[in-house]
Structures are given as structure tokens and as C-alpha cells.
């Protein structure tokens, strides 16, 4: 009986996922004349990936990192500089970005992981802010003016298109890939070790787990995913500057999305981004006008409500909702 129900649940889950995927695949053809809506979808995919990356270091390993924006910018700047100066395809540029970001994450991790909790958070904020200051004053990377990407023939080779639709598919793919990646890690031994480290690092060390190694791996994968999205993002907006790519709100938003959706779950970041990003865009249009910030105020209230009602996030709310419906249906 129990088995039958589980199978049924798994099957329905799969068919739901399949339906959503088909919907997302055919959707752009109805939105050809709605570039703004496409943009909202693209940004949602961007934040699904960025939040999944943060989920790994924050949700699983329990390290409150605020360096997502820094890694994101490193990816964006690396591939863009390579494209401007030697005309290198961003497909190769992104590997350079990932490598540099992962290497910096390694250096940061080695030196900062002995800091616990808030201290680690503050140190990563400091790193991201210093990086921003450097880029704001560094002439050869455009300083505060930023960099405009050279326009190339629209092609897959240069990841440049006139329409938003190809970008839509690109970012959809990235969101799926990063989610699958986290899914694999969630089920792996390393995923289990990271969860144990989050609960009791010293205790994990006393189980013979090389806690430093697994935290470093998590941080480096986190950095790599951020850099990858940074590259694609630069190709999408065609202009990058320190203020837009190194804004600390990028990191904050990643964390909010994960907290909102469900910390340390695979579905959490997906749900969180799918709800918060469109909501943020909507409130910015409806309440904006007078400047930025309204979306953040709305975010703030939502987060408060979630923390008061169900600190484990929307994912848990939905899951218990499902169980309740199941109970009612069975009488």
C-alpha cells in the first residue's frame, strides 16, 4: 500500500515536471511580441541558477556567503574582456571565468573558512565590496563606465541574438542543468556530509570527514555556477559595469530566494525564484516610479511572514498542503 502510494507520487511528480517543461518550451512562441515578459522569465531562470549555487554553500554546507555577486561579476568580466581584446568566443571565455572564480573561491575558502557564522558572512561581504571598489577604479576594465560588448553577427558562436527567445532557451537550460547538478549532489555522499557539517562541524570532523575539503568543493562549485551565469548574463545585456554586476543585492536576493523557497532543498530555489522574481518585477512596475526599492520592501514583508509562519520555506508549506489534500481525498 505504502509502496503503491510512493510510486504513484513519483509518477505524478514526473508527469507534472514533464508538463511544466513542455509548457516552458512552447511558451516563447506565444510571447514573441512580449519582450518584457520574456525578460521576466529570463531573470527568473537566472535567479534559479544563482540561488541553486548559493543553496549549495548556504543551504547544504551552512556557510553564509555573500560573495555570489563577486563570482557572477568575475564570470561576466572575464569572458567579456576576452571577447573584446582577442575576440574569443564566450563559450571558451566562460571556462576561463569559471576557472578564475573557482580558484578565487579556493583561496577565499582556505583563508576564511575558519571564521564561523556571521564572521564568515562579513568577510565575504568585505571581499565583494573590495572587488567592486577595485573594478570601479580600474581603467583597463572600464572602471565606473563599464564595458560594452562588441556587437558581432548574431550567432550561437558569439552567444548574441537579436531576439530574446534564444536567450530564453539558453537560460532555461542553465537553470535546469544547475538544478540537476544540485539534485545529484543532494543524493550523493558529499551532500550528506555537507548537511552533517552544517549541523555540527566539529562532530563531523570526529566522524573522519574532511570538512575543509567538502566546504571548499561546495564553495568552488558555487563560484563556478555563478561565473557561468555571469558570462551568459553579460552576453544577454551586452553591457556590464561594477554597479550592476557587483551589487550586493544580487547576493542578498539569492539568499532571500533560497530562504523563501526552502533552505537546503532542491525544489526550494526553483520555487523561491519562480515566485519572488516575477513578484519583484511586478511591484517595481506598479509601485516603482519614485525610484527603486519598493520591490525590496515587499520582499522584506514576505520574508517576515514566511519566517513567522513556516521558517522552512514555501516548499515545506506546499508539501504539507499536498499531504493534507491527500488526507481529505482519502476521507
Amino acid at each position, binding site marked *: 500500500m505504502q509502496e503503491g502510494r510512493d510510486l504513484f507520487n513519483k509518477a505524478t511528480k514526473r508527469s507534472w515536471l514533464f508538463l511544466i517543461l513542455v509548457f516552458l518550451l512552447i511558451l516563447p512562441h506565444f510571447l514573441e511580441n512580449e519582450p518584457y515578459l520574456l525578460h521576466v522569465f529570463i531573470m527568473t531562470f537566472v535567479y534559479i541558477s544563482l540561488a541553486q549555487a548559493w543553496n549549495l554553500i548556504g543551504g547544504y554546507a551552512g556557510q553564509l556567503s555573500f560573495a555570489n555577486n563577486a563570482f557572477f561579476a568575475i564570470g561576466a568580466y572575464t569572458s567579456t574582456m576576452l571577447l573584446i581584446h582577442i575576440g574569443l568566443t564566450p563559450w571558451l571565455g566562460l571556462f576561463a571565468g569559471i576557472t578564475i572564480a573557482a580558484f578565487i573561491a579556493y583561496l577565499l575558502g582556505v583563508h576564511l573558512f575558519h571564521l564561523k557564522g556571521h564572521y564568515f558572512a562579513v568577510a565575504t561581504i568585505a571581499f565583494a565590496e573590495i572587488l567592486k571598489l577595485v573594478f570601479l577604479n580600474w581603467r583597463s576594465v572600464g572602471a565606473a563606465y563599464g564595458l560594452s560588448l562588441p556587437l558581432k553577427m548574431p550567432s550561437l558562436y558569439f552567444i548574441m541574438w537579436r531576439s530574446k527567445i534564444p536567450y530564453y532557451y539558453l537560460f532555461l537550460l542553465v537553470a535546469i542543468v544547475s538544478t540537476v547538478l544540485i539534485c545529484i549532489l543532494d543524493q550523493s555522499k558529499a551532500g550528506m556530509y555537507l548537511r552533517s557539517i552544517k*549541523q555540527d562541524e566539529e562532530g563531523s570532523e*570526529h566522524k573522519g570527514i574532511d570538512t575543509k575539503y567538502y566546504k571548499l568543493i561546495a564553495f568552488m562549485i558555487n563560484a563556478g555556477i555563478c561565473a557561468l551565469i555571469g558570462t551568459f548574463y553579460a552576453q544577454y545585456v551586452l553591457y556590464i559595469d561594477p554597479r550592476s554586476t557587483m551589487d550586493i543585492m544580487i547576493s542578498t536576493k539569492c539568499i532571500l530566494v533560497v530562504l523563501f523557497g526552502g533552505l537546503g532543498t532542491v525544489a526550494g530555489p526553483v520555487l523561491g525564484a519562480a515566485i519572488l522574481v516575477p513578484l519583484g518585477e511586478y511591484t517595481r512596475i506598479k509601485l516603482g516610479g519614485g525610484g527603486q526599492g519598493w520591490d525590496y520592501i515587499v520582499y522584506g514583508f514576505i520574508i517576515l511572514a514566511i519566517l513567522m509562519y513556516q521558517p522552512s520555506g514555501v516548499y515545506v508549506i506546499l508539501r504539507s498542503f499536498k499531504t493534507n489534500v491527500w488526507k481529505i481525498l482519502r476521507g
Partner: protein
Amino acid sequence: MSGRSFEAKSLTKRFGGLTALDDVSVHVNEAEIVGLIGPNGSGKTTLFNCATGYLKPDKGKIFLKRIDITGKSPHRIIQEGVSRTFQITRVFPQLTVMENMLISISHKDESKIRAVYKRNHGHEIAKALELLEFVGISELSSEPGGELSYGQQKLLELASALMQDPSVVLLDEPTAGVNPTLINKIIDRIVDANRKFGVTFFVIEHNMDVIMSISMRMYALAAGRIIAEGDPEKVRGNPDVLESYLGGD
């Protein structure tokens, strides 16, 4: 006489002006259960902390099966074959009982790259179940560790300490805070593990009845020094031991 599993040679550890361990030498032979007694603050847990690399001794050496492990980091020492349980249980509350067992596998020959995408082997899960059955909590294997009673957590810690086929298991007060019925069960499991699987134990315990009934040899520690060692009955009867427990001068 079988070989030595664990040995500490003239270990000294100071905290500022306080000498917590003063030239302490102890050893545990293979398949032996050795007791360690002493009043509060005599340095018993400090000895364990030095043995697992959590504290660095100021002087002296620690050997595991005659291999020098002094100064290695805790996870390395655990990987070499030292398992440890804590005075106050240290079960991972949000991991299931099974996961608590699986993180305790031997990490010595584990590929850390493959761990990123691989799950546990079937034989590791089977072994975990076997040990959970051995301590009698296999029906709880999918419960979160935090849902277990304190006594069950003690049993889980004991079972997880056996997961990696350790050279020696350091038990820090295995029966502290546990009701009498369960105390008997825990003693039973320790003795059983020793007889059936030849597991070596080094046990800190305040409960005299417990330590007398399980240990084959015993050390008594007071103010950082070994004041008596050998046959449990003799150690208990030693005047220095009586004095340090009942309070002399």
C-alpha cells in the same frame, strides 16, 4: 600477549598554568576493554581530546597500532582507526539514524571526488543495518536522529563508532544520564562487541559498578597523573584512589 592498539607515551598538556595531563602513559592492547577512572577535572576527557587530535599535547606521543599519530588533525586520526563517542551525545539531529551511521563509514580509502556524485554502496547500508540491529534500534533507521531518546542516541553513537572497524573505540561515559535498564543494555552491547568482533575499547566511566563489570584492566587518573593501574579490583582498593575520590587532605 597480543599487540598494542593504542598507546600514549608521557603525554603532557598544559592550559596556561594548569597542568591537565602530567607525563601520562597509558596503553590499550588489542581486543581489550580498559577503564579510565578519576574524579572530575582529573584530565580524563583531556586525554581523549589529545588522543583524537582535538587538542595538541605539549609533550609526548600517541601511537595507533605502533604508528605515530601525534599532531595529526582529528579527521585524519579518526580515519586511521580511532572512533570516539562523547560525554553528551553528539547525534546529528536532522540526519536520519541511517545517515548518522553512513557518515561514520571509514573515510580512509574513500574517493573524495567520487563522493560528490556517488551514493553509498549497498554493503555500507547493509553493514549499518546490521549494527543498528546489534544495538536494537534498526526499526528507527529512517527517523531523524533528534527524535531519539537520550538512551537511544547513546546506542546510536555506539553503533556508529563501530561502523569503520576501528582499531580502538574511545567511549566517554557511555552510560551517563541513562536509566538503569538501558545501562545494562549498553554494557551488554559493549561486552558483546568486544567478545564477538574483538573490538578494543578504552572507556571513561564514573559509574563504578559499570566500569568494574566491563574492564579487564584499569587506570586511575587524579590531577593529571596516573596514580594506579592494573587489575580493576586492585585499582579500586588502592589507597591513593580512595583518597582522591573521597577527598584527602
